[in-house]
């Protein structure tokens, strides 16, 4: 009965007038941003983080979480109606959603996306609530050695599942860790890598890094192409599902929810991975796979449920272990830190209202999305007709004001521009910025746990291998690297052989 008691506490918090309002603002802003192409959830959260400083921590987190799943939702709306994924997690929704819209079934596609997401959101909320207590209890038994190894596993896991070069991704993590420790060292009081700049003695702000790497760089890269964006419009006639469609879609929703819930918890998982995995699962299970890509409702129902489930269960490692598993969760760490909450297993006991309130608000937010957004679809589509040449200066403005008001200093704005330039350079070198952000937020924690573990073991580094939990975590990390690295090596050798024989 504990879980009911906890959820009651959570709903008590989430259903207060103030928090309902912030959840509403969050999902609306999130949907708005999700609809607009070219700005992802990380940049959005970075942009809006400063506006939450004045709020109570729980309201701030509720609003930011609302932005995250609102963005998923907005992304699918445009995927169905105009064949444009507003977010990377709705790329696969374009495939069949837009085809359904062309066949005059846009309403059905949107309805199943909404209902599937809501169902997945409900299941995921219960799952988060149920898993959190035992997982936090386990995490509280962790010493510094276990924590250090857990962070290694989390970081490695996050890059193994991402695409691109593994070596580059690990190097980006290390660079992130390094940026994370800029500023005054808590143990010795020494200022590190501040170049004598007083503003850097408190470290680099997470808003600065995220906004530069994800917001500004994205805009610059979008402006590299001179193509004109065309907006195609599909007609929307009523939101209805036939019985046949519902019967067709229901099992896909169930499978998508299950798959998304599991993949969401894994490091590097979350909404995007879940939606891709669900699409390929549905295609494999279909009696007639050739229907996919031509408007199969299961190709919409599965991924849409999966991405929402994944978006929510990715909160589990953050809330129970304090380890963010993707860039959006890294932003949530930033948000919690700004509100003086150290993410980790202790949050549940030290801040139960915040913890359970946030979880309950996930369900409330999902309900809001279903109830409010369907009638608002017309407005979202109108927004798409705003040309990019007007949109990006406005985004720059909101970013600029947002980052300036963090500390009321021009230096932060300059720093953000610097990270924007760095982001462009990384994109040119095909280095993904997400691992850097993860490393950045974990940097100080990782150093601290390494220090403490080594202090306790009197400088004996084998402590990480002799303590069983720590050893298992490290072993898992090594296995992950090997699994990825080995086929990589093989492929490259094959390539080399092919060239040699040619």
């Amino acid at each position, binding site marked *: 009965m504990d879980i009911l008691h906890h959820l009651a506490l959570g709903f008590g918090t989430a259903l207060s007038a103030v928090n309902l309002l912030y959840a509403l603002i969050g999902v609306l802003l999130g949907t708005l941003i999700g609809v607009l192409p070219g700005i992802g959830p990380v940049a959005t959260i970075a942009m809006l983080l400063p506006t939450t400083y*004045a709020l109570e921590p729980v309201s701030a987190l509720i609003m930011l979480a609302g932005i995250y799943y609102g963005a998923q939702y907005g992304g699918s709306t445009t995927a169905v109606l105009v064949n444009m994924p507003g977010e990377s997690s709705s790329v696969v929704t374009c495939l069949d959603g837009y085809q359904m819209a062309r066949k005059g079934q846009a309403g059905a596609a949107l309805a199943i996306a909404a209902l599937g997401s809501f169902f997945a959101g409900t299941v995921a909320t219960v799952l988060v609530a149920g898993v959190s207590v035992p997982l936090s209890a386990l995490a509280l038994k962790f010493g510094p050695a276990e924590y250090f190894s857990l962070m290694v596993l989390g970081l490695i896991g996050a890059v193994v599942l991402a695409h691109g*070069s593994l*070596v*580059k991704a*690990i*190097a980006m993590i*290390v*660079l992130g*860790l*390094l940026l994370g*420790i800029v500023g005054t060292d808590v*143990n*010795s009081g*020494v200022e*590190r*890598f501040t170049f004598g700049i007083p503003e850097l003695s408190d470290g680099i702000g997470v808003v600065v890094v995220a906004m530069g790497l994800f917001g*500004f760089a994205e805009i*610059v890269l979008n*402006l*590299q192409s*001179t193509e*004109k964006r065309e907006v195609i419009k599909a007609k929307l006639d009523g939101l209805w599902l036939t019985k046949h469609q519902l019967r067709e879609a229901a099992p896909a929703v169930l499978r998508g929810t299950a798959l998304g819930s599991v993949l969401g918890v894994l490091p590097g998982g979350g909404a995007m991975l879940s939606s891709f995995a669900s699409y390929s699962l549905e295609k494999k299970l279909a009696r007639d796979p050739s229907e996919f890509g031509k408007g199969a409702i299961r190709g919409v129902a599965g991924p849409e449920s999966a991405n929402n489930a994944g978006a929510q269960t990715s909160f589990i490692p953050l809330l129970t272990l304090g380890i963010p598993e993707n860039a959006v969760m890294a932003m949530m760490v930033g948000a919690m830190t700004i509100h003086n909450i150290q993410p980790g297993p202790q949050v549940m006991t030290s801040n139960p209202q915040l913890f359970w309130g946030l979880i309950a608000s996930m369900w409330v937010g999902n309900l809001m999305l279903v109830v409010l957004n369907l009638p608002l679809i017309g407005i979202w589509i109108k927004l798409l007709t705003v*040309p*990019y*040449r*007007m949109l*990006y*200066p*406005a985004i*720059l*403005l909101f*970013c*600029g*004001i947002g980052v*300036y*008001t963090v500390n*009321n200093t*021009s*230096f*932060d*704005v*300059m720093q*953000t*521009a610097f990270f*924007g*330039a760095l982001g462009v350079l990384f994109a*040119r*070198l*095909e280095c993904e910025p997400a691992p850097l952000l993860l490393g950045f937020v974990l940097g100080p924690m990782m150093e601290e746990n*390494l*220090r403490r573990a*080594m*202090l306790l*073991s009197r*400088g*004996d580094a084998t402590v990480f291998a002799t303590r069983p939990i720590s050893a298992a975590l490290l072993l898992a990390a090594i296995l992950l690297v090997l699994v990825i690295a080995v086929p990589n090596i093989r492929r*490259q050798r094959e*390539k*080399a052989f092919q*060239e040699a024989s040619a």
Partner: protein
Amino acid sequence: MQRIRNSKDFFAGALFIAIGIATIALGTRYTLGSAARMGPGYFPRILGILLIVLGGILAARSLQVPGTRFAAFRWRPTLIVLGSVVLFGAIVRPLGVALSTVVLIVAASAASHEFRPRESLVVGVLLAALAVGVFVVGLQLQLPIWPGQA
């Protein structure tokens, strides 16, 4: 001399090596301590070494495994976008939000190949009104609206 077959990986590797070396060089000023009692220089030293190793792997591989070439790069939008942000940061306090917004919007709009000066001025004025309304009046952020209020 071997040919570079993947210039993206090569330059990425070189960048990581350079940052690694700089980290170690700058880090010599911080006490290293011992493994049991790590000083402020210990962890950065590990990270610096890791960066050099990883960068080295990337650079070495770039000599063997071919990759894609760099796409054409347009400096103009890059410099205008980032420059207009820097400019905004510099003038927002002395000039106030209203004027700085107009300056930022017009300057940043020039980065687009579809730049329309008059349109951007109108957008700038509208957004200035919105920014003042939302951020200064609504959210009560400590920002001057007009010049000389800071």
